[in-house]
């Protein structure tokens, strides 16, 4: 198991070593002393597991493909930004824009996420066990944002086709974001994501409300989608 101490090894060396991994490399890597540095383990494209002990700075595990990244600490802005696949787990809190523009994979935040969680998400699934700040799910296009706690102001502002699931209270909904029925297909999505986040047994899917787009702000009308 490679162990990299970032107090001794430059961050660029660690990231370059991870970028050299072949698609079948399945090792477990450990990273020590990240000391709030930015872009820790960004850009991996291999099915490795990386455990990071400590708080990380901005853009940790950005653009992640295939890898499983665990942060045993807090994450700064833009954790798992533009993730393509794989899984990123933050054991502490995440700062703003967690999972921003993510196209796939699963981001789990054990603590709270601050403002703009899941901004412009494009297919990523995000589970936040705590609460999220204002403007979460802003312009979210696809994927699922599951919030076990509360949401701040303007949840789902200018939302496209992502689904937002909220168990707690919301301070206010953003423009074009409305509550929608929680049907069986949504409950099964919730079961899958809560299980993946390790809380399937603790959380009742019926305690969630679903929010989605009223589809009145689109530049195209969704009912016409087949004609494009």
């Amino acid at each position, binding site marked *: 198991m490679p162990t990299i101490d970032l107090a001794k090894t430059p961050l660029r060396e660690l990231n370059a070593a991870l970028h050299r991994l072949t698609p079948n490399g399945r090792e477990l890597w450990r990273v020590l002393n990240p000391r709030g540095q930015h872009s820790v383990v960004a850009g991996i494209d291999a099915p490795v597991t990386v455990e990071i002990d400590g708080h990380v*700075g901005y853009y940790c595990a950005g653009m992640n493909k295939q890898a499983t990244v665990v942060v045993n600490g807090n994450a700064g802005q833009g954790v798992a930004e533009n993730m393509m696949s794989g899984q990123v787990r933050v054991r502490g*809190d995440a700062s703003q824009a967690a999972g921003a523009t993510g196209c796939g994979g699963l981001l789990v935040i054990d603590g709270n996420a*601050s*403002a703009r969680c899941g901004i412009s998400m494009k297919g990523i699934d995000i589970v936040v066990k705590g609460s999220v700040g204002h403007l979460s799910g802003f312009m979210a296009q696809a994927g699922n944002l599951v919030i076990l706690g509360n949401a701040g102001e303007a949840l789902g502002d200018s939302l496209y086709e992502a689904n937002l699931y909220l168990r707690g209270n919301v301070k206010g909904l953003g423009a074009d974001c409305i509550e929608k029925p929680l049907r069986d297909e949504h409950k099964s999505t919730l079961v899958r994501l809560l299980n993946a986040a390790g809380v399937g047994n603790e959380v009742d899917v019926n305690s969630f409300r679903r929010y989605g787009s009223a589809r009145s702000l689109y530049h195209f009308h969704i009912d016409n989608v087949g004609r494009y």
Partner: protein
Amino acid sequence: MCGIVGLYLKDAGLQSELGALTRTMLGALCDRGPDSAGFAVYGTEIPGHVKLTLRARKQFDWEQALRQLTDISGTPRRETIRDTHAVVAVPVNKEVAIRAQIERTGGVDIVGSGRRMEIFKEIGRPDRVAERFGLAQMTGTHAIGHTRMATESAVTTNGAHPFTTGPDQCLVHNGSLSNHNAVRRELIRNGLSFQTENDTEVAAGYMTWKIREGASLDQALNAMLGELDGFYTFVVGTESGFGVLRDPIACKPAVMAETDRWVAFGTEYRALVDLPGVENAKVWEPEPARVYRWERC
């Protein structure tokens, strides 16, 4: 960009390390603000005295200027010269006369005053600015520092943070205000004066005005939420306290950490990584539009 650090000590045993800890925090944020740097340190009070922080050009003849002040104060000289700045402790009852003398002395400005606050700022890389002033050797109860990437006004020493507009009060800012000209005019009508065209000085002036009108630090910061428009993370210092305020949209980053020995603020967590015991500290992001403050009884 810009970077802010703040450190408030709860454990008196750390007071001898305040300057060294603050220097390390400031140095970590050099790349967020390479234009200029500054810091305010709340050190030991000398009973019956007020500390004036003076600033002059490089190679200024402090000796001669300070001799004239001693003649007025009639007490033994209490001063520390640090590069372009000098901190002079003068008897409270001689402050007016000494201020008048300083104003007559060409080339010297009073840049801060208070019972405990000393303030230093210059253009240049923050780690070098800290070195020039000997920050690492300073002691005290709390300190606030700033690394500036200029946006709203020129890169000058006067445009460097912290800004101080009242005794023992200072403020540092990450962001930019959009209604500072209107607020400045209003404050001038209320008797405040300003040294620069800088937006941050207006925020400092507003805090000073509210406190002068009887507001607590908490009330002053809450009033700023309503009056100031723009992007801001503020960290403020008073004789006894330390406060943090972020704008409601929270555009500018902020991290706080607390142990039973200290409370610290950093624009990024990188600024906090060398604080003693940080690995077990409570670390969190301050909420938008919420006043955080710590004050000594």
